[in-house]
């Protein structure tokens, strides 16, 4: 399918010899930071910036809702490791960005969010589309700027990128009043580079960690999303290739060790694998790398790994001891810490053998009654067929957990998921951001009939730019995860989860100009996956599944990970 090219004329900055405007400074500062793609949606207060975009060299992706701009920028950042950039106007444009900014904050994703603001002279007067986004966003940004002088723009943007990408990454908001964006700047303030240094690991803490590891009989490597954020994936793989410590991962740490690699036992926690949870419960030592003991991973904290000492490595000192106290704390450069750890060959062969047996005993079972599509088996087959270039961009719900449990991930950026915030609507815009960043990868959005409706308008963005994203939509005509909890923990009182009146999603997709087909029987699985992967352009597979299917295993809320419910 051919992409529809936008028809906006290039302004080419009018080749004027007058001093640059604040908006032109924003554009040139973004280019200086190596930005190629920005995601956004124009409106009144941000119009000066949009006036400066044509001919600027920046590719702007016009989404159909500002939240999607933030989600797409988030995914772009996750797969490239560079800060993603999103743009919105003041008022509702800015507030629509907030969920996406919060998502980036919760998962420590580098992002620059630029919002238009009403002119400085009317700020504070409740002007049309005026909202205090600087104040509203404070709890969900790493930092924020309100631009008061146009000449500061290059410095602010350089600083924003530095803050967003250094240490523990996160989103930075830049609120830009319209008059400042329009004003001409004769004297631009020089950029003052601010050196940031990462904290080297304390040698005495490393020595203590080595001692604990050498004495341990049942160590477990507990991997979080912070390993990839610290660019320490190879260091961790090298470390564990030698150490051979049985490993588990949080939701956002998946792919750090490739799925299926020796000594890796999958995700722990509420919907973790039984073997993963059991081995953590039996451990006498946890080597925690870039994880924050999230409640979805630990279950009831008091009952979590009750016999284990903890070595905690994290770039963020504020995470150490926040939930679980550490016997050895190693704050600072995670990559350097992993490279410093020298433990030789551990005497843990009995433990490894025991854990291997646990893994074999509790492998996932892909047998299911009936002839309907079994989503876990579908996803297992899909990710194997897609191979090492597979990237899953998940929405939120049962399908998100099935992806985490059953897909094969060769690298951390192969699994894009709204981990901390759990934001429905992430899947399609995240898939768009990832596919634009990595056109040669096989990016698949896995969504549900609840989630897709949160940002379904982005099918238009896929169509407009010819984004060859594959979408698997598991349709159980319900808000499945809520339904599951109502069944299990609210005595079957099914309240407001029935989506019986869903549209025909394949027809909806076609009306957006996206190829689509429907799958309803298990024996159609292989053909559906082949069609999905072999279609060169955007495509949606509308897959009907059993509305009563649940995600297993499950640690009930408030229970220890030792108390898993099984199918």
């Amino acid at each position, binding site marked *: 399918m051919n992409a529809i090219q936008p028809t906006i004329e290039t302004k080419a900055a009018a080749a004027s010899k007058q001093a640059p405007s604040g908006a032109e400074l924003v554009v040139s500062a973004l280019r200086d930071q190596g930005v190629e793609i920005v995601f956004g949606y124009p409106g009144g207060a941000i119009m000066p910036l949009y006036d400066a975009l044509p001919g600027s060299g920046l590719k702007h992706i016009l989404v159909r809702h500002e939240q999607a701009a933030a989600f797409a920028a988030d995914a772009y950042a996750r797969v490239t490791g560079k800060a993603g950039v999103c743009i919105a106007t003041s008022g509702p444009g800015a507030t629509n960005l907030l969920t996406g900014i919060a998502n980036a904050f919760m998962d420590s994703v580098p992002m620059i969010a630029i919002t238009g603001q009403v002119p400085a002279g009317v700020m504070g007067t409740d002007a049309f589309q005026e909202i205090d986004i*600087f*104040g509203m966003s*404070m*709890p969900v940004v*790493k*930092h*924020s*700027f*309100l631009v*008061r002088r146009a000449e500061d723009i290059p410095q602010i943007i350089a600083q924003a990128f530095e*803050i967003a990408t*250094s*240490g*523990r990454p996160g989103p930075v908001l830049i609120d830009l009043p319209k008059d400042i964006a329009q004003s001409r700047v004769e004297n631009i303030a020089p950029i003052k580079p601010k050196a*940031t*240094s*990462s*904290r080297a690991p304390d040698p005495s803490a490393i020595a203590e960690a080595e001692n604990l590891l050498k004495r341990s009989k049942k160590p477990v490597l507990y991997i979080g999303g912070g390993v990839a954020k610290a660019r320490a994936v190879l260091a961790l793989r090298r470390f564990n290739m030698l150490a051979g410590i049985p490993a588990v991962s949080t939701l956002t740490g998946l792919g750090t060790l490739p799925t299926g690699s020796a000594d890796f036992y999958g995700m722990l926690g509420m919907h973790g694998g039984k073997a993963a949870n059991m081995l953590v419960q039996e451990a006498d030592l946890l080597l925690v790398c870039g994880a924050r003991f999230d409640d979805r991973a630990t279950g009831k904290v008091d009952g979590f790994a009750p016999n284990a000492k903890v070595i905690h490595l994290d*770039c*963020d*000192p*504020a995470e150490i*001891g*926040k939930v679980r106290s550490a016997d050895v704390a190693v704050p600072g450069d995670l990559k350097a810490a992993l490279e410093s750890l020298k433990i030789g060959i551990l005497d843990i062969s009995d433990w490894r053998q025991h854990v291997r047996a646990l893994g074999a005993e509790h492998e996932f079972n892909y047998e299911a009654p009936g002839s309907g599509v079994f989503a876990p088996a579908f996803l297992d087959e899909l990710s194997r067929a897609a191979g090492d270039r597979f990237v899953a961009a998940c929405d939120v719900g049962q399908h998100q957990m099935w992806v985490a449990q059953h897909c094969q991930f060769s690298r951390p950026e192969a699994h894009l998921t709204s981990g901390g915030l759990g934001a429905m609507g992430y899947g399609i815009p995240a898939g768009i951001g990832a596919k634009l960043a990595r056109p040669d990868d096989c990016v698949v959005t896995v969504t549900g009939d609840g989630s897709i409706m949160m940002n379904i308008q982005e099918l238009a963005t896929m169509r407009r730019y010819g984004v060859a994203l594959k979408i698997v939509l598991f349709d159980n005509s319900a808000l499945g995860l809520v339904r599951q909890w109502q069944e299990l923990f609210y005595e079957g009182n099914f309240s407001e989860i029935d989506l019986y009146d869903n549209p025909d999603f394949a027809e909806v997709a076609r009306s957006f100009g996206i190829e689509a087909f429907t799958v309803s029987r298990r024996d159609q699985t292989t053909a559906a996956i082949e069609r999905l992967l072999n279609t060169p352009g955007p495509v949606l597979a509308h897959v009907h599944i059993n509305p009563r299917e649940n995600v297993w295993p499950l640690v009930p809320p408030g229970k220890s990970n030792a108390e898993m419910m099984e199918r």
Partner: protein
Amino acid sequence: MMTQTLHVEFETHEGALLRLIGLIERRGFDIHSVDLPAASAGRMNVGFGVIARNLSSDIGILQRQIHRLTGVCRVFGDVDGTDKRVGGQHG
């Protein structure tokens, strides 16, 4: 619960004080008193009297959470009779 004192030295960027107060409240502490001297040379040193809302709220963790804010130079407090300081550069 006991009132503990926390001193924060920070650069007076736009919204810096609001950011600090918001963080302290969000992370499980009530602000009981504020000692707010005038800013000098672009910096301010504010003293907060804080009370933990529950026993699990650790003021040491709060200090580190404050210190990771951009523009915070130093955090120190009289915690359990001990002067505990958090300093240095953070990303």
